[in-house]
């Protein structure tokens, strides 16, 4: 009952304060009327800063003179931005392009991606790399540059809008407390209070700025390139779904994509499964009761153990301690036709038998020794096997270390109780060790899977994606290429440079693996934490 009355009064208050806060649509007005002009000054400082940036980088001062001198007379009409094709540029003056400052020309660039290509004619000038003295707009538009800086502008504007929204909320709150008769804090109190509250924000500014520029802008950039037709050699590109359509209507490209996707999934699954299970096995072996070493007594009470657990563990983690890039490039030499793998087979005189065996199970297309492990078009299966085996060699020790740690945390009582119940070793493993370890390492298994899904190095440094598919053309994936290494080649190789295609595939990868990772993240500690 009582509650309702309070709500009535409060509703009235809220309505008034709410109406008042609408004044905040003019930045800072709410604060001034609340007699908190010092707050308004903060907001205005940002606004003025933005205006100064805009004006100091603009050429508005030259606009009227230059436009009056335009040779086209009456046919000239300034436009703010245009989606017109560059063919029409003879008649059009892009006002924001030629005169706008950082902010407005940035927004123009983001929307139009530039309109004046190299070699075209614009306002009576030949457009080229060279800038005419005093006329910066005679330089051609570079869409990538415009997109990048347009995004930075957009982020800056977003920060300002964010502050503005906060100021409106703040004016609403202050008005409410004024209306309900509470005293407003004085400026001095406010400043001290703010400094105390803002300290954390202030010291976070460098990190957040860096992340905005070097993480968020590039991610947006890459995502947006997918909606364009950008390839190497194009200075000027345009918005549209051309690339999406092209990739999914072209049967051979779709087939490449699906083949590579399928192999990526198999690879991610197999590589994670093998390293995890071998790591598990070796953790059990090292921790087993058989590995005690030879105890040697030194002096009275001290004894050292030769070939004990510690000795084996130290050697076992060697593959983990060597940087994986070096390991992978080393295995590139191991599986070279002149490399160690063939050398061993030659020394134990098994070369021809191995070649025949690999041929008979369909992995190796020839029966020739020395075996070319990763280069023959007809031996894609062998190359894939080699990639998984190499990953196993360098990957299992990490999981062994992880699982050894988990094994130590399983309560001894569980095993003692099962001993009393007469369980044998296999049952103890099946019903105690396995479930306990799986539960504790589940997040790490999922992380390994998503890491391997995008494990660029494991493919690129070892095989570089070879062998190629039979009769494949430029930009096609190899048989061991996973999506990410294929995209790398598609984007950055000397004879490719299909940026938009690479971006489309990147988005698809992210959709596939991102959902998985978000789900994994939602189960982490941080999500459940208070604060």
């Amino acid at each position, binding site marked *: 009952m009582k509650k309702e009355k309070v709500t009535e009064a409060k509703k009235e208050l809220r309505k008034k304060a709410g109406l008042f806060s609408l004044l905040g649509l003019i930045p800072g007005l709410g604060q001034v009327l609340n007699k908190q002009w010092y707050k308004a000054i903060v907001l205005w400082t940002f606004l003025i800063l933005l205006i100064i940036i805009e004006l100091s980088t603009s050429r508005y001062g030259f606009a009227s003179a230059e436009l009056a001198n335009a040779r086209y007379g009456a046919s000239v009409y300034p436009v703010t931005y245009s989606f017109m094709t560059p063919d029409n540029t003879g008649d059009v003056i892009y006002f924001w392009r030629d005169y706008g400052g950082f902010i407005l020309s940035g927004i123009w660039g983001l929307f139009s991606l530039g309109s004046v290509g190299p070699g075209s004619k614009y306002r009576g000038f030949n457009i080229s790399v060279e800038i005419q003295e005093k006329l910066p707009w005679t330089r051609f538009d570079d869409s*990538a*540059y415009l997109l*990048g800086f347009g995004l930075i502008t957009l982020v800056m504007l977003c920060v300002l809008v964010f502050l503005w929204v906060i100021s409106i909320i703040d004016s609403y709150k202050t008005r409410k407390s004024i209306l309900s008769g509470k005293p407003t804090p004085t400026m001095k109190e406010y400043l001290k209070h703010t400094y105390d509250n803002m*300290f*954390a924000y202030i*010291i*976070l500014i*460098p*990190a*957040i700025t*860096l992340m905005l*520029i*070097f*993480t*968020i802008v*590039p*991610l947006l*950039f*890459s995502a947006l*390139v997918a909606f364009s037709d950008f390839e190497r050699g194009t200075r000027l590109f345009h918005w549209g779904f051309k690339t999406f359509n092209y990739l999914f209507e072209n049967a051979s490209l779709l087939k490449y994509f699906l083949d590579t996707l399928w192999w990526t999934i198999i690879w991610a699954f197999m590589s994670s499964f093998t390293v995890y299970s071998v790591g598990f096995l*070796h953790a059990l*072996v090292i921790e*087993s009761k*058989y*590995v005690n070493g030879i105890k040697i007594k030194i002096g009275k009470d001290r004894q050292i153990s030769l070939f004990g657990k510690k000795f*084996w563990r130290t*050697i*076992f*983690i*060697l*593959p983990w*301690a060597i*940087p994986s*890039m070096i390991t992978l*490039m*080393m295995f*590139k*030499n*191991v599986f*070279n036709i*002149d490399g*160690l793998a063939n*050398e061993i087979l030659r020394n134990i005189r098994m070369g021809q038998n191995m070649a025949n065996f690999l041929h008979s199970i369909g992995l190796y297309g020839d029966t020739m020794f020395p075996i070319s492990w990763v280069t023959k078009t007809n031996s894609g299966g062998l190359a894939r096997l080699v990639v998984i085996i190499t990953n196993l*060699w360098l990957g299992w020790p*990490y999981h062994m270390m992880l699982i050894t740690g988990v094994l130590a945390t399983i309560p001894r009582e569980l095993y003692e109780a099962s001993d009393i119940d007469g369980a044998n070793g296999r049952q103890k493993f099946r019903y105690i060790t396995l479930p306990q370890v799986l539960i504790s390492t589940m997040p790490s298994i999922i992380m390994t899977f998503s890491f391997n899904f*995008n*494990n*660029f*190095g494991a493919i690129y440094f070892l095989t570089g994606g070879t062998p190629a598919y039979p009769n494949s053309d430029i930009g096609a994936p190899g048989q061991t290429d996973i999506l990410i290494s294929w995209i*790398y080649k598609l*984007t950055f190789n000397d004879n490719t440079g299909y940026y938009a295609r*690479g*971006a489309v595939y*990147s988005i698809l990868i*992210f959709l596939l693996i*991102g959902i998985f*990772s*978000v789900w994994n*993240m939602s189960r982490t500690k941080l*999500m459940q934490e208070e604060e």
Partner: protein
Amino acid sequence: MRKFKHTLSGVLVYLYMIIIVLIILVPVVWMISATFYNVKSLAAIPLLPDFSKFSLEKYKWLFTFKQNEKSALPDYVQAFSYSLLIAVINTIGVVILSTINGFAFSRFRFKGKKAILLTMMLLQMFPTFMSMMAYFLIFRSLGWINTINGLLGLVLIYMTGSIPINIFIVRGYLRGIPKVIDEAAYIDGATKTQLFFHVIFPLAVPIIGFVAVNAFMTPWLDYMLQNKLAGNNFITIAVWLFRINDPLSKDYDPIAFMTGALLLSIPIVIVNFAMQKYIVYGMATGAEKG
């Protein structure tokens, strides 16, 4: 009988472990022994080391070779110094950023804290690869590729990329330091900056050391970004190693690769062994950025 069974199992376990050790050591020993042959082809490297042919020519070559018209690659020492430059600047930047950020996130309550942390966690899920095209194209538009700016821009990318994971590591560590210490310092009249420099920073030295070593090691073996952004004028050690080991390159010399790689790996292997506990901990607490 039971004892016999036990002994037999023990022998089998040891045999198995010896086989594993062989699988681990044979490629490593083969690589190390290869560096002592003064040849240019893998075919000349036998399985078992042939000590009569050993020489230190490859090592000598690494340190005396100078770039010339015939080779596209710079000398090893030059490449090494570029990587060292990136690593040093990166370490300084990361240490400053991660300590103050860790301080903010462990010591203060402020609005949006959880939102910022979650956003950072979300952002680090995107592989660096996805942003790479943007880095490359923006750097190219700015004319930074092939210049020292590209190299320095690379440092900013590494620094930014490591912010989230380092915040989680340092924050986790600092939260273990009781807040009573802060209160005592405030009662004695310390300001927040004083608290940071005179109390928190000295206590955080071990974790800062860990973060610093990580930051120092990251840039040495990142091929993907360095190959594209630093360009051909600033070939770093990772790019150098990849190119000299590329059969399609005219500088192809796998033995020189193994020599260079060995010299680079030895310090890294030692650091990894020394820090194995911390590194496994770090990997388990936050997802590693790949």
